[in-house]
């Protein structure tokens, strides 16, 4: 086996039919984002697998009725995401509790805070704009979270924002806190799902 053989196998990968296990996982939204994208690449090419997928979708509808039942992944994912939000806020508070670190961060760079879950389901960061406004961005590689509402409170400022799709692989929500509204106590923050 040489490197060219690996490249050839990779080039051919999208032409290979999906297994039943992959198709049912695809239908039930159990594949991670990258595996789903690989499956999409094949489905774009293959009439046979598209038809096989639709039979599995009919199977689901036969068991659960017209709507096919709501996959549990949706609920689990929301809970998962909510937990990560809690962890991110804890991290924010720990970080901004040390005034010295805040000053250093502000002096050092425009990105003054970042937290990411290991699986990439939540990435949150804060950027200090040249105007001294603060942008808080909450991103996820789980595009199924598109449309979820988040309530962000920074001091007395409360804003509701929505996770919106920015690419095939990412949803993002943003809150802007103007310089005037930035609280003295930066630990006075909460982010939760509505």
């Amino acid at each position, binding site marked *: *086996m*040489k*490197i060219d053989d*690996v*490249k*050839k*196998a*990779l*080039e*051919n*990968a*999208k*032409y*290979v*039919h*999906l*297994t*039943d*296990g*992959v198709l*049912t*996982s695809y*239908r*039930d939204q*159990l*594949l*991670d984002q*990258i*595996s789903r*994208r*690989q*499956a999409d*690449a*094949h489905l*774009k*090419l*293959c*009439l*046979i697998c598209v*038809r*096989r997928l639709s*039979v*599995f979708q*009919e*199977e*689901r509808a*036969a*068991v*659960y009725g017209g709507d096919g*039942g*709501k*996959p*549990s992944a949706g609920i689990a994912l929301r809970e998962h995401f909510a937990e990560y939000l809690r962890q991110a806020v804890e991290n924010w508070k720990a970080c901004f509790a040390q005034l010295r670190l805040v000053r250093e961060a502000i002096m050092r760079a425009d990105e003054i805070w970042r937290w990411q879950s290991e699986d*990439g389901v939540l990435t949150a960061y804060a950027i200090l704009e040249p105007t001294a406004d603060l942008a808080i961005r909450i991103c996820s590689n789980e595009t199924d979270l598109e449309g979820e509402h988040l309530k962000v409170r920074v001091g007395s400022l409360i804003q509701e924002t929505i996770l919106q799709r920015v*690419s095939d*692989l990412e949803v993002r929500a943003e809150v802007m806190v103007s310089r005037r509204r930035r609280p003295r106590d930066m630990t006075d923050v909460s982010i939760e799902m509505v």
Partner: protein
Amino acid sequence: MKDDELDLWKRYHEGEEKAFDELLEYYKRLVRFWVKGIIVKSPRADRDDLIQEGMIKLQKLIQGFDPGRGGEFISYAGWRLRDALLDSLKRSRNMPDYQYKKHRKVINAQDALIQRLRRAPTLAEIAQEAGLTLKQVERAIDAMSVAFPEEFIAQDTDLPISVRTVENPDDRILIGELLLKLDERKRLILTEYYYWGCTDLEIANQLGLNKDNVKRIRQRATEALLKLIEEKPGG
């Protein structure tokens, strides 16, 4: 899973005997669905025999399923149930041979066309390549999921993508399995490059990296795959 379904599983695992019968009743529709599909494709099959066979298999599948491991029962049970029904059909020799040949022709034609054209072939192109009518191709594709699942390799694996080289189907390389061992960024770059035909520059823009970086990561990822293949027994 729906709430009532989850509740049934909870009661079953708490040892409530009645819950097992209720689960059987709940998933009876799964048996009916596959039996109905198989009967349409193999009219000589005995419906009652298949239903009975399906219910026996369903019992075993319920006993073997652990909802605590995640996933849904129908993801786990659906195609396994279908395979058991087809096995029973084969044992009773009710599967006509000419059907199989037609399906094989369509699959071979599509695979050959994809290789040659490097795009999705149309139904008409498949029909021409296979020497069948458009209607025959449509029927064959329609029947495929139900009648000939063994055409689609690696039924026994839960790997997201099992890959073999198309030109040489016996020389199976489990690229999909090995891809899962790479970190997310490498997997993503290989997926975008090889599955979607993106350029390094396009990937770089998507990931906020520079083009040379993407190229380097891609090369490293390919080398890592080669290493993993070599480390595999018989690799």
